[in-house]
C-alpha cells in the first residue's frame, strides 16, 4: 500500500501517523501542503495537529491549501482518505464529510484514552473490527464536539456511516459520534487517534487494527 501523509503548517501528528503506517508495512510518502500534484496513492492521511494554529476555525485555513483540491478529486475517484483529529476537522471544512466540530462541552482540552464502540464494519478502515466491538483509543483535542443537523444525523445512521461512537461522551458530540464515513465509504474522519494505539509499548494496539485493515483491503 502506498500511503501519503500530508504536512500542513502546524500539523504535529504527521510523523506519528507515518510511523504507525510504516510499522504495518505501508510505503509512506510525506506530502507538503503546497503541492498541487500527487503521486499514485492508495491512502491519503490528513494527520492531527493545529494547522494554522486553529486560527479562524479549526481546519478552515488548511482546507484551502493548494493540495486539497487534488485530495478532493482523489477522494471522489475512490482513493481512501483518512482524517485524524485536525484532519477530520479539515475534511468537514472542505465538505468531504458532513457536520462540523465546536469546542468540547467542558470547554477544555482533553487528552486521555477513551472507550469506543465500532459502529460499522462496512468500510475499508473498519472491516477488521467486529460491529459493536469495544476498543480504546486516545483522544487529544479542544474542539471535538461533533455537531450536525437532526436530518443529517438520521441520514448518517440510515446509511450506516457512523464509524465510531464514544461509550462515555467526552466532548458533547451529537449522538456520541467519534468518526464518520463519507457517502462513498472511502473517506473517514475521526477525532480519536488510532496512531497512538498502534504500539504495545504505548499502552494499546486497538488502533493498529485500523491500519492493518487498510493494508489488507487496499493491498
Amino acid at each position, binding site marked *: 500500500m502506498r500511503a501519503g501523509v500530508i504536512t500542513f*503548517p*502546524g500539523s*504535529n*501528528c504527521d*510523523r*506519528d501517523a507515518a*510511523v*504507525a503506517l510504516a510499522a504495518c508495512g505501508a510505503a509512506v510518502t510525506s506530502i507538503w501542503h503546497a503541492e498541487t500534484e500527487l503521486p499514485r496513492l492508495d491512502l491519503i492521511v490528513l494527520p*492531527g*495537529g*493545529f494547522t*494554522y*494554529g*486553529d*486560527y479562524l476555525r479549526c481546519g478552515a485555513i488548511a482546507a484551502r491549501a493548494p493540495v486539497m483540491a487534488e485530495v478532493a478529486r482523489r477522494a471522489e475517484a475512490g482513493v481512501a482518505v483518512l482524517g485524524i483529529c485536525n484532519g477530520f476537522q479539515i475534511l468537514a471544512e472542505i465538505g468531504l464529510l458532513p457536520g462540523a466540530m465546536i469546542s468540547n462541552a*467542558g*470547554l*477544555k*482540552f*482533553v*487528552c*486521555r484514552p477513551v472507550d469506543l464502540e465500532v459502529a460499522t464494519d462496512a468500510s475499508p478502515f473498519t472491516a477488521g473490527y467486529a460491529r459493536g466491538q469495544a476498543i480504546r483509543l*486516545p483522544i*487529544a483535542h*479542544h474542539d471535538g464536539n461533533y455537531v450536525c443537523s437532526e436530518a443529517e444525523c438520521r441520514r448518517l445512521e440510515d446509511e450506516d456511516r457512523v464509524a465510531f461512537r464514544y461509550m462515555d461522551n467526552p466532548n458533547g458530540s451529537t449522538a456520541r459520534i467519534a468518526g464518520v464515513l463519507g457517502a462513498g465509504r472511502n473517506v473517514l474522519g475521526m477525532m480519536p*487517534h488510532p*496512531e*497512538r494505539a498502534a*504500539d504495545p*509499548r*504505548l*499502552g494499546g494496539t486497538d488502533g493498529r487494527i485500523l491500519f492493518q485493515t487498510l493494508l489488507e483491503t487496499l493491498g
Partner: protein
Amino acid sequence: MAIAADEITPELIAEHGLADAEYERIVAILGRAPNLLELGIFSVMWSEHCSYKSSRHWLRRLPTEGPQVICGPGENAGVVDLGDGMAAVFKIESHNHPSFIEPHQGAATGVGGILRDVFTMGARPVALLDSLRFGAPGHPKTRYLVDGVVAGIGGYGNCVGVPTVGGETTFHGVYNGNVLVNAMCVGLVAREQIFYARASGPGNPVVYVGAKTGRDGIHGATMASAEFSEAAEARRPTVQAGDPFTEKLLLEACLELMRTDAIVAIQDMGAAGLTSSSFEMAARGGVGIEMDLDRVPTRETGMTPYELMLSESQERMLLVLRQGAEGRARAVFAKWDLECVAVGRVTDSGAVVLRWHGEEVARVPVAPIGREAPLYERPHERRPAAVPIAALDVAAPLAPGEALRRLLGSPDLASRRWIFEQYDHMVMGDTVQRPGGDAAVVRIHGSNRGLALTTDCTPRYCAADPVRGGMQAVAEAWRNLCAVGARPLAVTDCLNFGSPENPQVMGEFVGCIEGMAEACRALDFPVVSGNVSFYNETDGQAIWPTPTVGGLGLLADLDHMATLAWRHGGLALVLVGETFGWLGCSLYLREVCGREEGAPPPVDLATERRHGELVRSLCEAGLLEACHDLSDGGLYVALAEMALASGIGADLRLPEACDSPTAWLFGEDQGRYLLAVAPARLAAVEAAASRAGVLARRVGTTGGAALTLDGGDAISLRELAAIHEGWLPALMGTP
C-alpha cells in the same frame, strides 16, 4: 561618533533599576555618559535576571562536570551524552511574575521560551514538564491562576506538538501573591549536530528570523528583577503574548536549516530580546556585531531603537550565517512563512554597534559588559535550625485509615488528572510512561532506550532547613529516576527565592545551594543548566525557598522500566530502607494535626545512593513487578498510590514492635522505596539487598479490592479513588 547624548537623570537611572555605582561603572566602560538606548541595554544586561549578579558567586559551588556532560551552564541549555551518538539537551526556566500578572500568556510564553532554548541548540524538543506552586486553595485568586496557567501551558505545548509529560503542583499560602511557574524542556540531538551560540567570522551576516517585533515585553527582564506590589496588575503590558503556531514553524524551519552547513551560531531572543542575543553571541565568540535596526521586521509603526532592542516579542531567533548562505536560509524560512532578514554582520571591533537609518546610535564594548558586570556577595544570615519533633510527641487524632483518606484528598496529594489531561502528553508517539508515575519516560525515537524525567522540590523542607531541603530536592529527583529503573545523568535547576537584598532570603539561598551541591556531588548528578529567579515576593512577603530540581536519567532498555502499578494479587510488598518514623515537617503533621513545624527528615546521601543503585539493579535484573519511591505522606500514601494505579488492593502488616503506627505509616524518612515482588523472586531480591547491605523487609501482600492494615480496617479502592480524584475537580468546579 554621532551618538546623540541624552540627558541621563538620576530618576532615569533609578527607573532602569540601576544602582548609582552600577551607573558609574557604565560611564567608566564607555568613557562617556551613555545615551538612553545604551542605558537601556546595560539595564537589561545587568538585571538580576540576565547577569546573575547576586547568585553567580554561589552558583560556582554547584558541580557542573562529569564524563556524561557535553555542555554545562553558560549556553542556552545543558547537554549530556546518551551514548549511541545521541545527546539530550535540557533546561528549566521560571516564568513566575508574568504568570501571576497574566496567567495564560505568562505560562504559555514560559513554555515557548524554554522550547526555543532547546531547539536553538539543534535538538528536537521531545518532552515538557512544569513545576507549579500556587497559593492556598481557598485564596480568591488561586482558581483563576490555576485555570489560566494550566490552559496557557496546554495551549502552547499542545499546539507546538511536544508532549507535556510530567511535573508537580502544590498549594500553599506563601505563594498567594507570587505563584511559581517553572517550565522544563528536553530535546534530542545527534552528538555531532549540536549548535552553539558563539558568533564568529567577521563579515558573516547576522540574520533575524521568526515573528515580527512589537512593543510587548519591554523591560520584562527588569520586571523579573524587582519585587512585586499590589500594583503588579498594572504591569500587564510588560507580559509578552505567545503564538505557538509561529513557534512550531520556527522550530521546523530552524531544524531544517540546521541540516545544512549554513549556520555558524544561533540564539533565541528570550529575556532582553535582541540585546541579550546579540551581546551574548558576540561575547562567547570574542567578536563584535553591527546591526542596522531599521531593518528589523516590526509589527507596529514608529518603533524606536530603544524599543527594538528591549522588546521581548516571542518566537524570534538571531542567527550568524556563513557568507553566501543567506539565500538558502531565506528559502527555508520562506517555505515556513517566516521572516528572514539580514540585519547586520559580525565584526572584529569587539563592540556591538547599532545604526538607525545609517546613523550610529549606540556603541557598547562587548567584553566589559560581561567582565565588568556587577557581582554582589550579599550579606546572608543563617536561620537557627528547626527543632526535631519526636514521633511520640505527635498526637494521632485520626485512625490510620481516616488519616489516609484525609491525606489522599489533600491539596498536595490529590490526583493531578484535572491538570495533565489538559496537556497532550502522548503526541510524538514515544511517551511510554505517562503522567502520574515517579518519573515520566519518553522513548528515544526509533530505539528501545528511554529518557526518565522528573521535577522535584519540597519547599516546606527548604523553609525549615535550607541545607537539608536543598539536599532533599536533589535526592528526591535522583530517587524518582531510580524508581523507574533509570540511571540518573544530570540536573537542571530553577532556584526560586525572595529578594536577595534580604539577608535572611540570601541565607536560604546559600543554604539550599550548599545542600544541593553536596547531594549532586555525592550522587554524581551534576548541574548542567538552570535559572535563578529572585524577588519572588509581594509587599515584603517572600515565598518559601523553592529550588526546583529537574532530573534526567537514561533507561538503557525499556523492557526493564518499572511503574507504580502491579498487575497481580499475591505479590510480596518489600520496603527498602530504614523507617524511623520522621514526622517533623511531614504532610501528616500539617494535614492531620494542623501543625507546620519541626525539622525535615535527614538525608543520608551514601544511603540514598546505595538504595537507588540497588533498586535500579533489581529493575535491570527484571525482578520487580512494581516500584515506587516514598516521599510526601510516607509509606501508607505510597502504597495507596500504587494500589490506585493498579486497581488491585493490598494488605499492609505493621511491624511487631511498633511504638507509633502513625509514624511508621506516615513518616517521611528519606531514601526509601516500596517494591512489589513475585513470590518466586522474593529470595533473589532479599539476597541482592543483603549483599548490598540494604535493609529490605517484607511489609505486605497485594490482592483484593481494598487496602487493609493487618487484615482489618479495610478501605475500598473505589472509595479511595473517589477521594483522590475528587479534590481538584471540586476546587476548580469542573470535571
